[in-house]
């Protein structure tokens, strides 16, 4: 992917400007330690796929018939359509929100920034419950409309609901990646376009959007791959997705081979999405200029302010206020019936330890990947990156069983240890950290560390004193994404964690799954509060960093 940017874009920049930095990054071969590090990470990421192949080879005739049904293709198609739709939807919500919260005089900009990123903290199945409570056949909205004499709200179940819930759950990926680029990119190009007579719309389309393309692509891909492997929300919203069929196969027939073969098909579809995204991006690619960065001009919204506020309000209302309200309702309803309010400290500690460690490890693993991709672009680098994204779409249950299998057979002393769990989280969510780190690294440019090297600093000193401090916002954003993803993760936690280890997410799931919504409410509320706090911290750091 990155070599696409390196090859250079099509508009706006004189050829000489494009060529200079390109020459300085692509002529050297990557150093051996870097290659070894990325190869190790690649092997870790490939383990689940290897497991699926091993299991799928044991597939019997019954399962083969199951796979060969026309229904398989139908389900696969609808899952790919869902994923593409969610990627698109997340872009449509995420890009304007990123622009509004970074470049305009939107009233309450800071607060909106936190509020629009925060839905990342809401597990998608909680969001699904909430939307049914709010927009379902007997929900708040239809009740209100009925009292006004309006009947026949379109059904939330099926594709519309799945699209809505997963878009609301994933647009923050696009928002965060786009925002990082908008904040760090040099506004000179846009200003030049405007001064040459382009209107705002034309300048945005011809200059800003291509500049943002890599960031948008990363975010949209994360959203789409999340959607294609999601199980919780789609089953609550009764959408027949491929991931759901895989879960049915695992859960109801104890057939690991058939399920593995199905999972391989899903991964293949995910790779197709990764490939398609790279193709689209190749056409839109433009090199990010390395000029001295200045603050972008604040765009006054004028009378559009109200429309912008309504947009932010609607998105936040659906993705954050509705689930928070649902949780509060569960809590109040349960307490009114005399349910005990139970909140123990252990799951909070377990959640923080697991998510914190996973964020740290993923942040560290992301560095070699990002360096290879940005500094040594080529076939190898793009292959490594695409592989990571493809592995990201392995359904959670298949990934968990893969880890059970490999740890038992290769490293039995790591089976059911916290170490394995943290490593599993880190590899699972690595694309989130690698994507943001890569975007940040692209904005630094190779000439700064090279200058330091030429002045006699050792490579390690350069990394420590120059590159890492400059990378800080990108690294932090990536680590935060991993933190938030880990803290709501379920299948790995349930099947790979040490016996007796329980997080807030497993508590919420365990209680809500058994119909104890009141008992699910307290841990769900704490989960959201912790996540909100971490989002607020992260974004504050981003605003103040150089």
């Amino acid at each position, binding site marked *: 992917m990155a070599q696409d940017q390196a090859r250079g874009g099509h508009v706006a920049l004189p050829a000489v400007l494009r060529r200079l930095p390109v020459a300085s990054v692509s002529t050297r071969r990557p150093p051996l330690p870097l290659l070894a590090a990325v190869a190790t990470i690649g092997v870790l990421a490939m383990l689940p796929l290897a497991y699926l192949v091993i299991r799928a080879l044991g597939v019997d005739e019954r399962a083969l018939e199951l796979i060969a049904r026309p229904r398989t293709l139908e389900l696969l198609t609808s899952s790919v359509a869902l994923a593409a739709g969610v990627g698109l939807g997340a872009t449509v919500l995420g890009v304007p929100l990123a622009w509004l919260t970074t470049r305009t005089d939107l009233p309450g900009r800071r607060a909106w920034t936190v509020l629009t990123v925060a839905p990342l903290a809401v597990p998608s199945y909680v969001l699904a419950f909430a939307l049914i409570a709010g927009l379902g056949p007997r929900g708040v909205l239809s009740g209100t409309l009925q009292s006004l004499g309006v009947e026949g709200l379109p059904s939330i179940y099926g594709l519309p609901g799945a699209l809505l819930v997963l878009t609301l759950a994933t647009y923050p990926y696009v928002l965060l990646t786009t925002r990082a680029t908008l904040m760090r990119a040099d506004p000179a190009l846009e200003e030049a376009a405007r001064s040459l007579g382009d209107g705002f719309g034309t300048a945005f389309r011809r200059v800003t959007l291509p500049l943002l393309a890599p960031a948008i692509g990363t975010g949209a891909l994360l959203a789409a791959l999340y959607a294609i492997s999601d199980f919780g929300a789609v089953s609550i919203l009764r959408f027949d997705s491929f991931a759901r069929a895989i879960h049915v196969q695992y859960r109801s027939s104890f057939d690991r081979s058939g399920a593995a073969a199905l999972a391989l098909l899903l991964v293949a579809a995910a790779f197709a999405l990764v490939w398609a995204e790279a193709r689209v991006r190749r056409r839109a690619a433009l090199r990010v200029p390395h000029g001295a960065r200045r603050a972008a001009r604040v765009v006054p919204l004028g009378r559009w302010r109200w429309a912008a506020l309504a947009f932010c309000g609607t998105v936040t209302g659906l993705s954050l206020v509705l689930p928070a309200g649902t949780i509060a309702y569960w809590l109040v309803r349960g307490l009114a019936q005399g349910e005990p309010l139970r909140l123990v400290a252990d799951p909070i500690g377990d959640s923080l330890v697991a998510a914190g460690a996973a964020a740290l*490890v993923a942040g560290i693993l992301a560095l070699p990947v990002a360096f290879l991709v940005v500094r040594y672009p080529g076939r190898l680098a793009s292959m490594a990156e695409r592989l990571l994204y493809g592995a990201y779409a392995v359904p959670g249950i298949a990934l968990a069983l893969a880890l059970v299998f490999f740890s038992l057979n290769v490293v039995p002393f790591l089976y059911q*240890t916290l170490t394995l769990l943290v490593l599993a989280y880190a590899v699972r969510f690595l694309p989130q950290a690698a994507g943001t780190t890569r975007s940040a690294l692209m904005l630094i440019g190779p000439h700064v560390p090279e200058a330091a090297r030429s002045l006699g600093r050792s490579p390690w000193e350069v990394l420590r004193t120059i590159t890492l401090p400059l990378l800080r916002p990108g690294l932090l954003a990536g680590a935060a994404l991993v933190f938030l993803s880990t803290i709501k993760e379920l299948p790995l936690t349930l099947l790979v964690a040490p016996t007796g280890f329980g997080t807030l997410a497993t508590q919420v799931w365990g209680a809500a799954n058994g119909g104890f919504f009141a008992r699910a409410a307290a841990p769900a509320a704490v989960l959201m509060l912790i996540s909100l706090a971490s989002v607020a911290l992260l974004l504050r750091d981003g605003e103040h960093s150089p």
Partner: protein
Amino acid sequence: MERAVFATRWRSHAARVASGMVAAAVLAACNAGAPPVLAPGTGASPTASSGAVTSPDVSSTTLTVYSGREEELVAPLIERFEAESGIDIEARYGDTAELASIILEEGEAGDVRADVFFAQDAGALGAVAAAGLLAPLDATVLDRVDARFRDDEGRWVGVSGRARVLAYSTERLSEDDLPASITELTDPTWAGRIGWAPTNASMQAFVTAFRQLEGEDAARAWLEGIVANDPVVYPNNTGAVEGVAAGEVDVALVNHYYLMRLLAENGPEYPVANHFLPGGDLGSLVNVAGAGILADSERADAAARFVDYLVSEDAQTYFSEETYEFPLLDGIAADPRLPTLAEIESPEIDLNSLADLQGTVELMRETGALD
């Protein structure tokens, strides 16, 4: 006090992560395909490379239970057992079928970590038993439970009973409107009014029983009839009962106790009631949650004590009062709002025969009940 405990836990976690990371790094450096290399600080036992390993942190009195039953239900019971017996229990909670899958993986690797499997339904126990991973239980435990509710080879024992019911809306239906048999639901008058959860294990066990008792063709015809009535698909039983309350459907095919839980949360005005189909109808099939001991367990004595406890008066009273299930031990009464097991007239069936899930899943796929 709480803070101190928390801080200690945190530090020990951190230490374990750190030491494990070192081990992992060493391992990665030494090529992941090679036999395991023991790094200092992992706490691994020196026999690790021989294959069959016991978890280093587990002392002889700590029992590992894989529980497919929810933590909300089982944790208080486990605490009582620990207090009574002095045996510590480490419980892993999860979906019954997923836990069965990891037990099967552990079995294949010759490294079973679970001592007891406490499963939501007989089918999962049957799958683990069929892989030869369960040890026979003591006759003193088995004999306490009616022969209908245990494995005939004694490899697992039923712990609590759950009946299939038709949950119905008390706002839109009177008792006279209710069907006398589950087969009446295929009548077109029920079109669009039925809720069910076809991916639910209990629902699939019911279809398996249908196949066993009435034959493949009758089961197919029933499924086709239900599918033709355009049932609303819910992800689980709770969702189906809530769908009845919300007015999305008039009846739902579920287990009896979900309603009881929702009554506890929503109060007695909750507009749903259970209909137990009369006269030995298939629609009132009684299935069990049960437990078995893993054949490779090195703590078989402690495991036997735990399974013994599950069918003791104390635990059976707990299931009756807290989970609203049917106790299987004679002399313990079910919740007063429920009929007795004898009154339900559950159809006669060997619960072991419910293990053929593959055939059921195929039939449900062919009829469009499942994807």
